[in-house]
């Protein structure tokens, strides 16, 4: 199984398609896995349920996390990822429509690496996703390569 580079946690298929379009078009990431709710995201990251055959020692290079999610909210996903020794160091970037101070502060308190609000204008959206992808997938170093 090819190693997943980006885990996209996004319940809105339109947003998911836009992100995928930018990542693929700019050849930033080929292996992007999309999950539509927080519970599935946790199953993927902790290699359980449908993802029990995954290897936990091969985490994604980047998790793009939306906040408003069914079942388990984005902040709770982040909290559980940071509480577990095995998943603690995975880079997580919140990519959301919300620009609420509360959401931003809570995100950083829970240990998010970066917080990006999705711009309405697609040119800016494209720029933001491209920048994020290039930084975290090529420039940034993680302990497991």
């Amino acid at each position, binding site marked *: 199984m090819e190693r997943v580079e980006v885990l996209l946690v996004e319940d809105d298929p339109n947003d998911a398609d836009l992100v995928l379009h930018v990542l693929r078009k700019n050849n930033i990431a080929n292996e992007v896995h999309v999950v539509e709710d927080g519970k599935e995201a946790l199953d993927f990251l902790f290699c359980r349920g449908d993802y029990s055959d995954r290897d936990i020692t091969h985490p994604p290079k980047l998790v793009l996390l939306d906040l408003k999610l069914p079942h388990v909210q984005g902040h709770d996903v982040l909290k559980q990822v940071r509480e577990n020794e095995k998943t603690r160091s995975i880079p997580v970037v919140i990519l959301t429509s*919300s620009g609420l101070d509360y959401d931003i502060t809570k995100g950083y308190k829970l240990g998010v690496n970066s917080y990006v609000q999705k711009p309405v*204008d*697609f040119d800016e959206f494209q720029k933001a996703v491209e920048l994020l992808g290039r930084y975290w997938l090529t420039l940034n170093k993680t302990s497991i390569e």
Partner: protein
Amino acid sequence: MSYFRGDTTRDVVSIYMTMNQESDTVLIDNHRISSRLPSSLRRWVPIGLVIVTGLMLTALIFRMAEESEWSVLVAGVGFTFLFAAYMVLLLGRTAQVERTVVERTAELEKEIAERKQAEIKIQEQYEDIEIHALELEAANNELQQTQGKLLEANLSLEEKVKERTAELELANKELEAFTYSVSHDLRAPLRHINGFSKILHDEYQEQLPDEAKGYLNRIAQSASNMGMLVDGLLNLSRIGRKDLEIASVDLNNIIGGVKAELEPEMAGRDIEWQIGELPKVECDSVLIKQVAVNLLSNAIKFTRNSSHAVIEVKPLPNSTPGFLVKDNGVGFDMNYADKLFGVFERLHRKLEFEGTGIGLATVQRIISNHNGRIWAEAEIDKGAAFYVELPFSNVEEKEVS
């Protein structure tokens, strides 16, 4: 006896009356002493004495004449004469004293009558005062009752205000939550419209006729504009909720930083900046920066048609804390100046100058949250000037609920 039991006026009157009565008693006593003996007796006793003495002396003289002692006789007659003269003088003096006593008595009686009169007057006044005192007391009671009622009303009013405030706060929170959720949830579909129309435009260029591409551009542009509107509204509502973080801020740094940030908007433009030495002010630096961004980008935008734009940023006169931003752009009609700071108010056509109509409303809200003042002066085609005045210091912290 204690004169000052509380009612001073009454006591003063009673003291005065007592004093009057005492002095009257003295006068009357004097009169009594002088008229202790009946006047007829007082007149006849000395005369009687003179006659008796005269008779006795005459007897003595005749006795002396019998014994032919003339020298003694002469002495006796002389003595008698002297005695008689003394008695006459004494009688005259008594009569004078008596007259004086009568006169004095009359005077005293007159005085007593006058004093009685005065006393009656004082008594009347005293009664008047008592009536007034009663009236005053009644008025005082009424006042106290009114005060009590007022206090009660105040308390219930305070209760009502508290209830109403709580209700309003709740309503406000709900409204904020609603605004936020609307703004937030509106952004997602706008992003999709904008995104997919742009992808369609870019990726399928060859297959699309120019007209279709034009429409796609319009769709993308409209979605983008609406996105800016939503962001502007979101920002405006956020400012209303934000607590001010007041610190001493150097306006020179703020203006310098904002000007640098706005460089991309000035590309290809001939703009002369005249920036004066600005003061330090007490404000929330993040919010004042937003004010500066709005005012400077407006100045850049509305001088777009000037061949040589001049933008001034100067301190306010008389060392008033704040600053002014003046340009030589299109200006506006001062008749519409009151609309300038309203939400969604625009004084220029959209095709001429883009914008959401939220910027200056946001600026005004920020300044009024600082207890400051903003106003503008302008003339069509001559330019506009915006004056931002902040309080000197000790900006009231906004109450946090």
